[in-house]
């Protein structure tokens, strides 16, 4: 077993992880404390899921826009379940982070005069979303990855699968990772660790996420006692391709695309988002530019009313871009055209794109304080895996890419500061914990136990989550999902893998991922069941629970791991120091109001 020492270990090579690594390196230089930083990722960094983000990244940019407006949009978008101090910090640091990306060479789309271009995005009052065609995440990730190559103090461990954190007396002391190429364990001793492992969309059957988005980091922190916060809030994106779930970006609607039901009717005007905006003149917060939760819910209603079309097995509505004209579509949305043509054989220039909602984003995650530190000393979290309190009950599109930068950097800097004042723990402590991991791996591969396949468990899990924790939820469906997940967790204890080889054993990895997934699925179901109100992405059909209940539930849910026993839920107060909860309204209904 190999052991290496680093000041800082960063787990995850997506946008958040890379930004944290660069942030830490810069901070160390500033402090004049030479530090070694390890960046671990289970895939090559540029394969991370940030690469798939299409639409853009938000920051107050134009002179007419204000921080207050971005703050208000984010707070009301999150249905007041956000940490307002955090949002305030976020909106004030967003612009400088995007400028920093520009200075690192990100190819932002431009206006004629050479300035950076912004586009409209759902739930945002003003056009403030920076974009690089419809491959924003791709360009940001590659820019960050390439920039990270400038820093010799960052040592990458590509295709190292982190199995566990090593924690001693309430402080993190390192991580234990499996080198995928050899199947050997590696111990990394660290003074500070940053988790940046991304979301958990793969808990659901139908989703826009990459195969690697399995919530590993959330589960690792959770198993060591950190609370998972607001896990019941899972965002459905209204426009996924039928079949695969591949995302058709919100930018389509920002650029003027419209949603039609099977009768060619713009049904959103019936759901409090009207009146209908003229073709080709999208207006912020109206119609197609309403927030994602509302749009996904409207789809569900149309589906119930039998007004959706069919594509293969899927019920669909239609996203129509044709009126934008070929030139404009190809300039602004080239990737969308490529995706629609390849995967469903539809040319958006000529035909409306059939779409349906798909699970997209995990609002909740590893609970951190406003400085990204968790309840374990020296353990930080940033990006989609974290719940720093920015998104509340519903994330606004294009806030998350900016989040990776703002909080990735913050987490990196914090980690660097801590590492400068901390000593490594005794390496025997690490070895002891690594032995446990070694044993757990050996057990998975020993060929004993039940003959059950982890594949069946996985299918059962994603099925249960989809039917229990979908766009609309009922007490009964959630209870059933929770029961199923708990049974699956018990069954998982007897699971063995077929493939017992060492080199690049992807079956083993998928099986471990499933174990993580089941743990956080329980947290997600439990939070959902206990939240007896409707808020943001969490919408109940139960009698009397279809509205927001600020008296009892203006609270974060916190779920704690209890080993093989049932997880435990607690409630935590929300920081509402700047803006008192108000009704969340869009379309004309919002006129005059503050929302």
């Amino acid at each position, binding site marked *: 077993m190999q052991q290496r020492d680093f000041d800082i270990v960063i787990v995850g090579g997506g946008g958040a992880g890379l930004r944290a690594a660069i942030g830490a390196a810069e901070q160390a230089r500033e402090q004049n404390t030479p530090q070694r930083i390890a960046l671990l990722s289970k895939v090559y960094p540029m394969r991370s899921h940030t690469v798939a983000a299409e639409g853009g990244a938000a920051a107050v940019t134009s002179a007419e826009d204000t921080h207050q407006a971005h703050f208000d949009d984010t707070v009301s978008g999150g249905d007041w379940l956000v940490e307002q101090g955090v949002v305030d910090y976020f909106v004030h640091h967003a612009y400088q982070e995007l400028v920093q990306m520009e200075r690192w060479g990100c190819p932002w789309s431009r206006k004629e005069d050479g300035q950076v271009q912004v586009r409209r995005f759902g739930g945002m009052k003003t056009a403030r979303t920076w974009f690089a065609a419809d491959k924003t995440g791709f360009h940001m990730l590659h820019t960050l990855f390439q920039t990270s190559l400038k820093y*010799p103090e*960052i*040592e*990458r*461990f*590509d*295709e190292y699968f982190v199995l566990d954190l090593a924690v001693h007396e309430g402080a993190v002391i390192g991580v234990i990772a499996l*080198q995928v*190429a050899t199947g050997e364990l590696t111990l990394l001793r660290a003074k500070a660790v940053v988790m940046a492992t991304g979301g958990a969309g793969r808990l659901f059957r139908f989703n826009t996420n990459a195969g690697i988005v399995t919530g590993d980091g959330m589960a690792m922190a959770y198993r060591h006692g950190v609370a998972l916060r607001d896990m019941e809030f899972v965002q459905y994106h209204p426009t996924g391709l039928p079949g695969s779930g591949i995302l058709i970006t919100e930018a389509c609607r920002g650029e003027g695309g419209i949603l039609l039901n099977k009768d060619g009717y713009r049904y959103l005007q019936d759901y409090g988002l009207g009146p209908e905006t003229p073709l080709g003149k999208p207006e912020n917060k109206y119609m197609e530019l309403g927030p994602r939760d509302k749009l996904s819910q409207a789809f569900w209603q149309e589906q119930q009313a039998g007004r959706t079309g069919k594509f293969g097995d899927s019920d669909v509505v239609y996203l129509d871009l044709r009126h934008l004209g070929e030139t404009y579509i190809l300039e602004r949305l080239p990737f969308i055209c490529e995706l629609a043509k390849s995967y469903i054989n539809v040319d958006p220039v000529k035909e409306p794109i059939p779409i349906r909602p798909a699970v997209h984003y995990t609002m909740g995650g590893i609970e951190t304080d406003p400085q990204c530190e968790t309840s374990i000393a020296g353990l930080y979290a940033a990006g989609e895996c974290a719940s720093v309190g920015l998104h509340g009950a519903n994330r606004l599109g294009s806030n998350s890419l900016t989040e990776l930068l703002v909080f990735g950097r913050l987490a990196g800097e914090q980690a660097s500061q801590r590492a400068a004042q901390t000593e490594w723990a005794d390496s025997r402590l690490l070895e002891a914990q690594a032995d446990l991991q070694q044993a757990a791996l050996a057990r998975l591969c020993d060929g004993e136990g039940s003959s059950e396949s982890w594949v069946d468990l996985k299918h059962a899990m994603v099925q249960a989550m989809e039917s229990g924790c979908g766009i609309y939820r009922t007490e009964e469906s959630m209870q059933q999902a929770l029961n199923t997940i708990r049974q699956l967790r018990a069954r998982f204890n007897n699971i063995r893998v077929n493939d017992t080889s060492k080199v690049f054993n992807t079956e083993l990895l998928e099986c471990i991922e499933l174990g993580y997934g089941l743990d956080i699925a329980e947290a997600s179901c439990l939070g959902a069941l206990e939240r007896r109100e409707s808020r943001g992405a969490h919408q109940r059909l139960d009698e009397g629970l279809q509205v927001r209940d600020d008296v009892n539930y203006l609270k974060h849910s916190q779920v704690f791991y209890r080993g093989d026993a049932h997880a435990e839920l607690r409630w935590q107060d929300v920081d509402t120091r700047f803006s008192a909860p108000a009704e969340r309204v869009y379309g004309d209904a919002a006129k005059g109001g503050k929302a």
Partner: protein
Amino acid sequence: MNVNKPSVSQHDAHRRQAYDEPLWWGLFSAGGVCFAVIMPAVILFIAVLLPLGLLPAEALSYERASGLLFSIPGLLFIGAAVCLPLFHAAHRLRHGLFDLSLGNDTLNKKVMYGLAALLSLLALGMVVAGMLN
């Protein structure tokens, strides 16, 4: 694996700078243009129509041919129809040998470009000799 490694050190890279390659590539490209634009006509007239007797009898009589060739335009013609195409050919042959894993590149380079230079000099020399005659 895939630990960030410092790339090839500056010093190392400098030592291996390919100062000659731009020259060969430039000659190759120029030769390629000649081969594509001029040679079809040259070959057609001189190597096909002429021996087949399809040109007017006097078109390339001894006198006319010497007059045309042993002149300044003739010199330019040889540059474009012999020298540059030779370097073009030498470049492709050198790389072709590498593609087929024949010989070793350092030697192939010397032989190929050397021959091209030699034959070019010969051709140009002949024009000059003709002009002096």
